[in-house]
């Protein structure tokens, strides 16, 4: 009887874990000692960091999408269906299509979803670059922009915490290249007392915003949008009027969690911060956005967590070795600061991030990474 690994989710974390394990255990899979299955609601993979570029018409949306099957190791089985619930007592995942998938080890990599509907009026009035459709719609709105007030707002929690800073700085640069900047009033709002949750990023962003005449409203948590007056209200009692509202919507976990009784508040999975096991279940791991860990919901975090979980799964599946590899809170995020320059932050639980001076070379590296990512997903590099 082969040892069965079931990975739920066909996004960054799911593909990386499955491919890393399959690559390490090719021989065992070939000899039917190990089975690796990915259960995915989507049969195409979308490179989400590309949405930022789509919004500014700098990237072709078609270049961001590839079939999941093409990205998976040939020895990984792919089941295109939605997980309906996890029955942890019988080590089985039940799919929407009515299929029971038994497992010895389960990886939950079911990501997060935007929830603009949590803020009244937001879904009707705002644009966002957190879905492909949203980025394309925003691109069209920007193409038609002649001037006026642009407001940026940020929900909690959200994926890719540096994205609102990136979008705002890129918008400024984009407007300058189009000779539009003087006709725009850009207001950046943020939920806490500074321009970003990370003090070093906040200091950098605040200096840049001041230099580029971008207005900043802090302590601004979205309450509602007046869709007739085009005014965004905050819970703190402040208002921002806009002609174009670009939001980073609040995010939530997948409802699958609620149905399975494993997830906590917000449908995030209570996860051990070192071994990434779902609390109370030694054979279930959570990777990427779906955890309740106090780390960024970001592709790099999914990547670094996937390496840890894959290493532990390889030991478990091949030798029954207890997990020993641990996640140390590692994250790496590029920050585009214009259309031509970028910086980055790199940190873990022990080392706070610093913000290097932006440069063209870092921007070039980010552009290169946008291509390298596909090899990363396949666990080739």
């Amino acid at each position, binding site marked *: 009887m082969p040892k069965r690994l079931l990975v739920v989710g066909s996004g960054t974390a799911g593909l990386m874990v499955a491919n890393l394990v399959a690559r390490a255990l090719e021989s065992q899979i070939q000899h039917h000692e190990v089975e690796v299955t990915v259960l995915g609601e989507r049969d195409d993979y979308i490179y989400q960091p590309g949405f930022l570029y789509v919004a500014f018409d700098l990237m072709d949306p078609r270049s961001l999408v590839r079939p999941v099957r093409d990205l998976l190791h040939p020895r990984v089985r792919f089941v295109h269906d939605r997980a309906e619930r996890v029955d942890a007592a019988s080590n089985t995942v039940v799919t929407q299509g009515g299929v029971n998938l038994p497992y010895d080890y389960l990886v939950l990599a079911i990501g997060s979803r935007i929830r603009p509907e949590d803020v009244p009026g937001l879904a009707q009035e705002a644009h966002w670059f957190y879905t492909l459709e949203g980025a394309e719609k925003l691109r069209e709105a920007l193409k038609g922009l002649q001037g006026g007030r642009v407001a940026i707002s940020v929900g909690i929690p959200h994926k890719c915490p540096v994205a609102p800073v990136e979008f705002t700085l890129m918008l400024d640069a984009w407007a300058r290249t189009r000779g539009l900047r003087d006709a725009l009033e850009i207001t950046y709002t943020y*939920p*806490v007392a500074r321009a970003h*949750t990370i003090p070093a990023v906040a200091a950098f962003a605040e200096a840049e915003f001041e230099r580029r005449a971008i207005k900043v409203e802090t302590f601004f948590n979205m309450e509602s949008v007046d869709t007739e007056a085009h005014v965004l209200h905050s819970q*703190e009692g402040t208002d921002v009027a806009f002609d174009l509202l670009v939001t980073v919507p609040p995010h939530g976990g997948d409802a699958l969690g609620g149905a399975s009784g494993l997830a906590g508040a917000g449908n995030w999975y209570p996860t051990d911060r070192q071994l990434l096991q779902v609390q109370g279940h030694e054979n279930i791991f959570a990777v990427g956005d779906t955890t309740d860990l106090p780390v*960024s919901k970001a592709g790099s975090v999914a990547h670094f967590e996937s390496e840890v979980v894959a290493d532990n799964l390889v030991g478990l599946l091949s030798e029954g070795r207890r997990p020993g590899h641990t996640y140390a*809170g590692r994250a790496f995020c590029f920050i585009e600061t214009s259309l031509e320059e970028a910086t980055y932050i790199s940190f873990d639980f022990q080392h706070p991030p610093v913000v290097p001076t932006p440069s063209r070379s870092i921007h070039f590296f980010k552009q290169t990474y946008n291509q390298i990512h596909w090899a990363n997903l396949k666990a080739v590099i």
Partner: protein
Amino acid sequence: MSEFLRGVGRMVTADRVIDARGSFCPGPLMEMIRAIKTAEVGQVVEVLTSDSGSRTDIPKWAEKAGQELVEVVSRDGGDAILVRKVK
């Protein structure tokens, strides 16, 4: 659940505890805001933090957001900050 003595003989129980030690992003304050959002009115959220800035950041946010700062205590090599959702 986390319990400790507050004041003289008074016990405050957190309904939810978040270990945000070592969290630089999203950071302890964002974790607090996220947890308060999903908490029920009357519940207490406790955030454990190793970031000294949280001692001022979180109380400042609680005041601004109209939530009740219950306590700030040193514990486990960091701070435990408790906020009750009141609205």
